[in-house]
């Protein structure tokens, strides 16, 4: 029996939730910044593609790459297999490029960046100053004393505003910059890897992204290097009627390690906005990448107006032996989510993991999941998906596990749990399983439960109000996934859970 005096408190996380619930405003990132913007004309054509390429100062090979994608895209159809219902998107009624006027001449360092832009990120709680971030920031009594550094790349509408800690990262040989800068400064890496995981022909949205992506982040970790700090990108959509198309490319060379965080917010608007990003991760021999997302785009109002339409293609290629990748996502925002972060387990003994919390409330719809493509021998994958639906929301888990003939002795474990709050919402599980060799094994478990009235009453009898009670129960339901997040993000995610479920009971 453990003695009680050995006990350590490691919480803070749940505190935060409760406090957040108490001071809740429905979408706290819903304000916009008045910044003079420069737009490309509305609509999409070869000229617009050329213009974007020119604005980014790209070499010809890049322009050609985009044009090829564009020509392909015009022949493609929007996919309709997902369990999503939304009005037709008029792709000609969008701006494909917007950037703050002040960014016309690229600032050389963060000191030169428009203070209004920096203030925007400050208001979002994202430090663009190079400073220590204490793990757990406020209210974390258990924060480690040594603090942690997180390097940030901030993308505002179409352009990267700036990247912190560049010098310190450079000392370790790590390249962390905007993708437009990488195209100019590291063309050999970009040419070798861009489109090698998600080819420009992959799917409708990825092809669109390949033609018009404006910016995003680029990461290269050299052989044997453990990245000395967390890397993160914060995406902010600000301009109206503007699609955001970021492109992220991460390359972990042999024996390297990196943990990467992605956060997203957008102002409240009553018209829907399009977001079609592509993330490509290349993991070489013995390397490991952790990619965490807290997606908190504006979900639309209670009646289903506005919100972000989020069509994202994320894929990691474990290209060589013993490569390892872990996707963790907390999806609370967006009106529409269409997203399947995937792992191609090509190298022998490579491993892929996917941990997901998808919360839908009001009229939100999410069709999300993962694909685990086992190509190499002895490959392992693990999927833990927690779907939470409230209000009139629909939440679909769609997952593919595929064991190819050569992927002998491979294993997959899938656990897929759905939690319903109220009786007007829905949860759906659509697993696709293909096993083409006899020595591999796939295990799938799925549960659906409701937030139980007895649990709610128990919490309320102990003093919590209904919203606190729901937040506590839901955070408990999603615990395995929250635990997979880096500590700072776990807190943010817990409070997001509470915020996004506001008004879901009673």
């Amino acid at each position, binding site marked *: 029996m453990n003695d009680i005096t050995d006990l350590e408190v490691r919480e803070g996380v749940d505190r935060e939730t409760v406090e957040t619930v108490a001071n809740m405003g429905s979408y706290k990132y819903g304000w916009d910044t008045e910044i003079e913007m420069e737009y490309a004309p509305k609509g999409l054509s070869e000229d617009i593609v050329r213009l974007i390429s020119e604005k980014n100062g790209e070499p010809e090979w890049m322009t050609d790459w985009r044009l090829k994608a564009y020509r392909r895209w015009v022949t493609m159809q929007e996919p309709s297999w997902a369990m999503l219902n939304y009005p037709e998107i008029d792709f000609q009624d969008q701006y494909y490029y917007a950037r703050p006027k002040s960014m016309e001449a690229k600032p050389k360092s963060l000191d030169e960046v428009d203070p209004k832009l920096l203030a925007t990120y400050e208001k979002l709680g994202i430090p663009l100053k190079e400073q220590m971030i204490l793990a757990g920031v406020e209210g974390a009594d258990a924060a480690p004393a040594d603090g942690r550094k997180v390097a940030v790349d901030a993308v505002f509408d179409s352009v990267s505003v700036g990247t912190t800690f560049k010098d310190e990262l450079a000392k370790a040989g790590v390249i962390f910059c905007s993708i437009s800068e990488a195209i100019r400064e590291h063309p050999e890496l970009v040419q070798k890897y861009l489109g090698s995981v998600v080819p420009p022909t992959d799917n409708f949205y990825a092809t669109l992204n390949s033609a018009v992506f404006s910016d995003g982040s680029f990461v290269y970790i050299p052989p044997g290097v453990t990245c000395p700090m967390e890397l993160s990108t914060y995406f902010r959509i600000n301009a109206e009627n503007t699609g955001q198309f970021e492109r992220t490319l991460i390359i972990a060379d042999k024996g390297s390690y990196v943990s990467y965080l992605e956060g997203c917010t957008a102002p409240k608007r009553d018209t829907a906005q399009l977001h079609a990003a592509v993330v490509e991760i290349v993991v070489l021999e013995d390397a490991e990448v952790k990619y965490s997302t807290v997606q908190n785009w504006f979900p639309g109002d209670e009646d289903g107006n506005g919100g972000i339409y989020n069509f994202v293609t994320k894929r990691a290629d474990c290209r060589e032996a013993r490569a390892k990748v872990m996707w963790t996502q907390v999806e609370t925002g967006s009106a529409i989510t269409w997203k399947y972060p995937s792992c191609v387990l090509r190298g022998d003994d490579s491993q892929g993991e996917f941990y997901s919390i998808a919360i839908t409330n009001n009229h939100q719809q999410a069709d999300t999941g993962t694909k685990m493509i086992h190509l190499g021998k002895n490959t392992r994958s693990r999927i833990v998906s927690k779907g939470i639906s409230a209000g009139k929301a629909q939440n679909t888990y769609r997952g593919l596990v595929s064991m190819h003939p050569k992927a002998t002795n491979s294993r997959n474990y899938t656990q897929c749990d759905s939690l319903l709050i109220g009786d007007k919402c829905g949860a759906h599980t659509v697993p696709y399983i293909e096993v083409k060799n006899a020595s591999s094994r796939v295990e799938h478990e799925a549960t659906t439960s409701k937030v139980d009235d007895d*649990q709610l009453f128990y919490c309320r009898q102990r003093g919590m*109000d209904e919203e606190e009670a729901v937040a506590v129960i839901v955070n408990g339901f999603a615990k395995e996934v929250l635990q997979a997040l880096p500590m700072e993000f776990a807190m943010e995610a817990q409070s997001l859970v509470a915020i996004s479920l506001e008004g879901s009971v009673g």
Partner: protein
Amino acid sequence: MLKINNLHAKLEDEDKQILKGVSLEVPAGEVHAIMGPNGSGKSTTSYVLSGRDGYEVTDGSATLYGEDLLEMEPEERAAAGLFLAFQYPVEIPGVGNMTFLRTALNAQRKRRGEEELSAAEFLKLIREKGKALNIDADMLKRPVNVGFSGGEKKRNEILQMAVLEPKMCILDETDSGLDVDAMRLVADGVNALRAPDRAFLVITHYQRLLDHIRPDVVHIMSDGKIVKTGGPELALEVEQNGYADLLSEVA
């Protein structure tokens, strides 16, 4: 402290009357016991007092310190000092026992306009209370009641009571399913909390618990009503002769 007068309650979705005029009064500083046959409405009384959904009060009143309990939300009743140790404590997967309890305590404190406890202060408090109830660190870390044995669940209810320090404690068959030692711990826990400004309403089937927690008053409930009220000797009578004689006597 607690005054229940002619309380009538029926099921919300069914035309079934369960409480048919419960009246009793528990003054501050006293311990009262309720005994009565299965299905007589003991648990229902505790649920109606604490505000669980599914029941409709059709007549009568219930007040705590003169305040109308029936008008309040369950969490308001809790903050006002009403605590129910459940007959069947609920499991909450994934939520650490300590996190749960700290969230609850601070929610109550906040509602009452009191300062919330920091992690350190809370840790000190729970260590102290846990020790007395022989609740080890492992049990505090585990998710609320998940995988707890019957006896552990009941001890956990008493731990929550000890930490929340309510004014009016209702214990619904907290003694059922406890071994002799656990029964002692629970009884000691209750006795340690006895105070001039606190009262207990202990629902039980057995004299055993009442040997340890000496009640001031014993009520017998049958078919939705208190049919007899007396001293501790009433419990002994039930233990020896069962309810049949008692009930025929009042009928």
